[in-house]
């Protein structure tokens, strides 16, 4: 509770600082906004206290802090965009922060519902294949005629009327559930080593199927939706979960091998992949064209330096998509190295708590699910922040909790809800743990 209040206070100060430093004065509707955020945070806290009493106490405040930081930064970028519009004498764009606040409210409602309705995470295991199917459908949904929309070259949106969302964000959760459910059942047969090729133990061809399917699906996403980030995410997720389930390092090797083949193949076959890599290798040469974004991002980060330019005192609007993919560049510019380190450590805390939950929960499904959810989050953070800071080629993914965008925010909050639910089970005193029937039917490996 104290941590939550801390996060809220940081948000309030951040918002005031933005208004003051950017010369716009007090943000309009400031007190309503911070009150709404406060109420939402308290609602989540109370729900968790009542319905998941033993849940990890750190996860919720840390995630809330990240979301609030995101809101502050989106507000900050709104201000910058409005100022820029004023300078060019065009009507100011609609601010995004209120939309994001609405999404946050929806996310909280879903979060609360998940915590209340899903009394035990093991119930999800019943829906393994439903989840898998739904996930796959969602994944290919943007390709569907009429509702599928291509934005900036990537087909990852679904638009119905005025509402649009990125199904991949939800698919991410569903597929994690599917992987966990599938692997917990199949892990023993997958762990069997039949043939050895080049010192790598391979399982039977029949059991090799799923990994190949995952590989093909992620390649398919890459090819047909041109979404590099998502395909990377799914493949990485599946390989690591497979490894956790079977404890066979050969899966990691095989996965890396397939990844390498896929990467080289994609590079050779697709222009957009190739151009991403060229820009990554030498963005300066394309500073005015395809490398503009990353170059501006680097300039922004450099401008931030150690301590940052200060909230409201940088030029985050120079980076296109500053409030979605590139929000980390904006953060790095205004809060500096210190701020970015803090944000990365917040993510690290979430992932660490998630993996700790995975280790300590007693059922295999829970273990895999918690690990998978944590890994999804970690990989997503790495892929997007690595891209924005030119550690790896840039791929479009949202930054969990920080980026503007409803699908991402909602999906990631549900992810946290699931993690909390599992951690509640993991930390619950033993007496109750064996009480449910499901637990007895599982072979629990320690």
């Amino acid at each position, binding site marked *: 509770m104290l941590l939550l209040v801390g996060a809220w206070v940081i948000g309030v100060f951040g918002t005031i600082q933005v208004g003051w430093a950017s010369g716009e004065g007090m943000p309009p509707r400031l007190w309503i906004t911070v009150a709404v955020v406060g109420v939402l945070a308290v609602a989540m806290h109370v729900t968790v206290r009542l319905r998941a009493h033993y849940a990890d106490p750190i996860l919720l405040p840390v995630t809330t802090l990240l979301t609030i930081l995101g809101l502050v930064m989106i507000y900050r970028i709104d201000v910058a965009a409005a100022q820029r519009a004023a300078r060019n004498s065009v009507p100011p764009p609609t601010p995004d922060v209120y939309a994001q606040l609405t999404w946050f409210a929806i996310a909280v409602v879903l979060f609360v519902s998940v915590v209340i309705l899903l009394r035990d995470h093991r119930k999800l295991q019943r829906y393994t294949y439903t989840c898998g199917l739904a996930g796959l459908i969602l994944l290919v949904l943007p390709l569907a005629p009429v509702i599928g929309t291509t934005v900036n070259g990537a087909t990852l949106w679904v638009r119905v009327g005025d509402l649009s969302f990125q199904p991949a964000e939800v698919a991410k959760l569903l597929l994690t559930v599917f992987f966990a459910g599938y692997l917990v059942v199949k892990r023993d047969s997958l762990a069997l080593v039949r043939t050895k090729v080049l010192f790598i133990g391979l399982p039977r061809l029949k059991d090799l199927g799923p990994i190949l399917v995952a590989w093909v699906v992620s390649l398919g996403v890459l090819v047909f939706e041109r979404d590099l980030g998502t395909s990377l995410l799914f493949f990485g997720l599946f390989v690591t979960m497979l490894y956790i389930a079977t404890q066979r390092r050969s899966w990691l090797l095989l996965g890396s091998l397939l990844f390498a083949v896929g990467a080289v193949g994609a590079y050779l076959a697709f222009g957009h992949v190739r151009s991403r890599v060229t820009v990554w290798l030498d963005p300066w040469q394309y500073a005015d064209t395809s490398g503009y974004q990353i170059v501006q991002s680097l300039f922004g980060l*450099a*401008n931030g330096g150690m301590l940052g330019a200060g909230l409201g005192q940088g*030029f985050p609007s120079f980076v296109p998509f500053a409030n979605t993919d590139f929000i980390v560049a904006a953060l*790095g510019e205004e809060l500096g190295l210190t701020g970015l380190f803090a944000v990365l450590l917040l993510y690290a805390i979430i992932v660490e708590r998630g993996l700790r939950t995975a280790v300590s929960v007693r059922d295999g499904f829970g273990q895999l699910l918690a690990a998978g959810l944590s890994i999804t989050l970690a990989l997503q953070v*790495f892929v997007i*922040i690595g891209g924005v800071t030119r550690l790896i080629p840039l791929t479009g993914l949202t930054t969990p909790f920080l980026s503007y965008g409803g699908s991402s925010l909602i999906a990631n909050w549900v992810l946290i809800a699931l993690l909390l639910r599992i951690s509640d089970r993991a930390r619950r005193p033993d007496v109750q743990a064996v009480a449910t029937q499901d637990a007895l039917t599982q072979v629990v490996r320690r």
Partner: protein
Amino acid sequence: MAKPIRLIALLLGCLLVALLANITVIQVVLAGDYRDRPGNQRVLLEEYDRQRGPILVGAEPVARSVETGNALRYLRTYPDGPLYAPITGFYSIVYGATGLERQENRVLTGKSDLFFVDRTEQLFAGRQPRGGAVTTTIDADAQAAAFDGLKGKVGAVVAIEPATGRILASVQSPSFDPNLLSSHDTAEIRATYEALKADPAKPLLNRPIVALNPPGSTFKLVTTAAALASGRFTADTVIPGPATYRLPNSTKEIRNWNRQPCGPDGEVTLAQALAVSCNTAFAWLGTQIGADALRAQAQAFGFDTAFELPLKAATSDFPTDPDPAQTAMSAIGQFDVRATALQMAMVAAAVGNNGVVMRPYLVQEVRGPDLAILKTTSPDVFAEAMNSLDAAALTEMMVDAVENGTGTNARIPGVRVAGKTGTAQTGNERPSIAWFVAFAPAQSPQVAVAVVVEESGAEEISGNGLAAPIARSVMRAVLG
């Protein structure tokens, strides 16, 4: 399944470390590089957000920042734009900065290490950092006199204080108005810049220190200095000065401007040859001294050195490895000899300063935002180009050139003026560039000046006619 999860956690930890390390490299190690990259508008915009320090001539700002109340909080203005343009340069949001605006940027923005104490104080006081002030060595009267003199002509003037190397005037014509390039109106900036760039008279070229021209007869000062240094010639040595002189190993002949011999029987003293600017005598002298001695003398005066005032001056050239005919031509400042107005002013200044060449400089002091002096430039000897006896002899010859020779338009009543005219041709036969270099008073000079006027109209090109009057008014402005 705890073991594989731990391994995965370790791998994810490695990814985290990679991210942290990479961000550190970008934001700390490479940040400086990125900031200095062209096209980084952030740095410029940020600079517009704080008050940039002024550039001063005496106590008067010639470039200063004023508050606008707009998004870009400060506007850079130049009260006497075209007059000081070759010194201040411009400060453009589109084209970056030039001149002192560029070279002293760190001082003007307050980011120089000189301001460490101020910055620390500002950090704790939470005040916006302000820039420091740059005081130039320019003498406002000399600058104005040179500017007026060049009005309507194409050319440049540089005036130096011989004893120190302080630059007292640096003027060009045509000039430009830096106000138009430093405004906040990008359309206006672009239009102005494109027009200036298209102008054949090249107003954006920093003529006084960057334009290279054949120095013509003013280079005879260097040839004379080399001749005196050789020990084989004095002011009274009689040398041949016929009406025409056939270049060695060549069918080409050079002649004097009036097609007459320089003295009776085609012979003159060295002093007389300099006074009447005798081409044939100096061409012959060049072959006697040799290219190596000429080059060594030229280098001692500052040829082949890139001076930073801190504005970057062009390097004046003496040709490498000329044959005897080319050496003879070089001795009269033709062939491939090229010099800036700055360089020829340095030659005159050195002769007046007992042969000692002072390193030229444009920045007198750097002051903090509170006007406390943080740095003062002290005079620095570049080289001893001549011994003081030779320098005194050459000074007398130059005084003679003004009083009885070709440079009569530079005479100032009551002041002994030492000077040398020059005309040079670039390419075609007709002379196209007029020079005059001088210093005064001859015994202990307070000012040395070089004037170069390029052909721009139909007027007769002559050093005495076009350039000497400008040199005189600049010297009078300094002498008061």
